[in-house]
């Protein structure tokens, strides 16, 4: 186990800079997830930690040792790739034992460690099979087994679940989390799926365009997003955003959208007259008799809850309620917004106010 420190990391491909001075501190045994949209630089950063990409500037250290010029094989890390990257000509046991074989470890030791890892991942009966004889989930478990056998200081996961179907993804999420709880090894995990990030991480690093937007515990990011991007990225379905400004009406501050809808806000969040972006999560909107009238556009019942796509005048809004609704598209519902759960962002900078 080891801590990982990323200091002012820069990555350039020719004249194009893709990572702009990123700083991340990962504590010993922590499960950190780098999350962000495609092209945000999260995989590049992970590959730089692994040593598979050269570092253009800054410093990466693992366990207190600067590893900028250390070869991947000497970094004491193990990596699980998005597309598994299993050696197709080797069976499961040989795939898992490859790193130890390369190190010249005795066969008995290799067999014992492979067997132990296979037990952890329930791969015991598959050790003689070849990758082409395995299902997607089994292949991913073998890839994880290969990492476990090495007993590294840090595990690196590069979108390991993105090739699995939805059901298997949920199962593997639980397995990886259990694995972390069992082994306690530091994990750096890359995903574009914020649900994965929210459910698994001790700490989330949200990235965009090669920069870190916010670092924090999953629920901190959910409750207190630092800017519009993080607010929109974390949470599913995404937060509603309405552009407008804060105004004083009848001695109280309210939000007035550009199209004229009036919505409640907490007093003192912004100055009256200030242009802002109003943010409210769909799950923080309720149906109540004293709510604001909205016209239903589309209803999506999922059984456990109902998602309502509605309009406040010209402004679209998305709400999730536990009730089963009898309203039909075109009819009116009354949506109630709790002002304490409203997020207000500066319209220019997008920063939280």
């Amino acid at each position, binding site marked *: 186990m080891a801590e990982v420190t990323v200091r002012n990391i820069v990555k350039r491909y020719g004249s194009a800079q893709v990572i702009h001075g990123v700083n991340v501190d990962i504590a010993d045994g922590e499960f950190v997830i780098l999350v962000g949209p495609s092209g945000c630089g999260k995989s590049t950063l992970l590959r730089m930690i*692994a*040593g*598979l990409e050269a570092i253009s500037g800054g410093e990466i250290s693992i366990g207190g040792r600067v590893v900028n010029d250390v*070869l*991947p*094989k000497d970094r004491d*890390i*193990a*990596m699980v*790739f*998005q*597309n*598994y*990257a*299993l*050696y*197709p*000509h080797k069976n499961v046991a040989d795939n898992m034992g*490859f*790193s130890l074989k*390369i*190190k010249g470890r005795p066969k008995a030791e290799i067999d014992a460690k492979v067997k132990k890892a296979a037990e952890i991942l329930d791969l015991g009966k598959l050790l003689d099979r*070849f*990758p*082409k*004889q*395995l299902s*997607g989930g089994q*292949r991913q478990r073998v890839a994880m087994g*290969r990492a476990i056998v*090495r007993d590294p200081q840090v595990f690196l996961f590069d979108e390991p679940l993105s*090739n699995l179907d939805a059901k298997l993804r949920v199962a593997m999420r639980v397995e990886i989390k259990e694995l972390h709880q069992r082994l306690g090894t530091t994990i750096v995990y890359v995903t574009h799926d914020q649900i994965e990030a929210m459910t698994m991480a001790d700490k989330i690093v949200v990235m965009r365009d090669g920069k870190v937007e916010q670092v924090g515990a999953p629920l901190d990011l959910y409750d207190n997003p630092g800017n519009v991007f993080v607010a929109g990225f974390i949470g599913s379905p995404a937060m509603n955003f309405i552009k407008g400004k804060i105004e004083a009406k009848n001695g109280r501050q309210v939000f007035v959208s550009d199209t004229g809808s009036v919505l409640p806000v907490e007093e003192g969040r912004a100055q009256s007259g200030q242009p802002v972006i109003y943010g409210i999560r769909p799950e923080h909107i309720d149906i109540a008799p004293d709510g604001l009238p909205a016209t239903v556009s589309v209803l999506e019942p999922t059984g456990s809850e109902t998602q309502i796509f509605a309009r406040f005048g010209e402004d679209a809004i998305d709400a999730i309620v536990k009730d089963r609704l009898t309203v039909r598209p075109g009819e009116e519902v009354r949506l109630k917004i709790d002002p304490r759960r409203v997020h207000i962002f500066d319209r220019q900078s997008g920063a939280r106010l």
Partner: protein
Amino acid sequence: MRANRPVFSILLWTLLSLLTLFPIYWLFVISVKPAVELFTTPSLLLETVYWKNYVKVLGDDTLRRYMFNSIVISSGNAVLVTVLAFMACYALSRFDLAGKENIFFWTITNRMAPAAVFLLPFFLLFTQVFVIGEWKLYDTRTGMILLYCTFNLPFAIWTLRPTIDAIPKELDEAATVDGATTWQVIREVIFPLARPGLAVTLILTWVFAWNEFLLAATLTSFNARTITTGLSEYVTTTGTEWGTMASIAIITLIPALLIFSIVQRHIVAGLTFGAVKE
């Protein structure tokens, strides 16, 4: 219709096999008949077998030497070319070399001119330039192996490159993170997966060198003379020894068949299946 398909398929493949094997059978028939019989009563049937052509050929020291030269030159060339092409393709496929696509195209331009164009320059190089004291590159097996490399290497690089490109780079990276050096990656991961492509390259380059006549006839005289050029020695001013030539031709088929049967089992399609999610 569906039931007839296997029958039709068997008939078609039988016919094609017979068409392919017929010239070889004809050659064999000629090789086991005395010269007189060949011209007096030409027949494709084997009534009696006359082994003396084979006895003559196998007992001839010179022909045995030619055969040995052919085996050494073809095999040496095929192995050398395949090893060099494998390393070149790995570098072209994996390393970020400046202008690597230009280098790749340039290699094949070396094969664009007909071999005859190179005859005179090679002859001069072999007889005038690559000379150390009494020793010349001319009429040496080493010279012929190197000569065929200049023709086979570009071809081999073009044949092998797609095979190496098709091996997912993530496998190199996984092995690197697992602790492998570049050589270990090549030996443990790339080589086993490139085996089908390497086998094809080995066979094609071996066959090229085995069959080549023009350059061998010009750049060898006796010591490194190959069996294909040896065959031509039986076309003389007093006549052509068809029976002897046919028996030599049949004998030259044997090493080729052996090479094919050894290498063929490595040509297995889809070896990388299951490596990565596609």
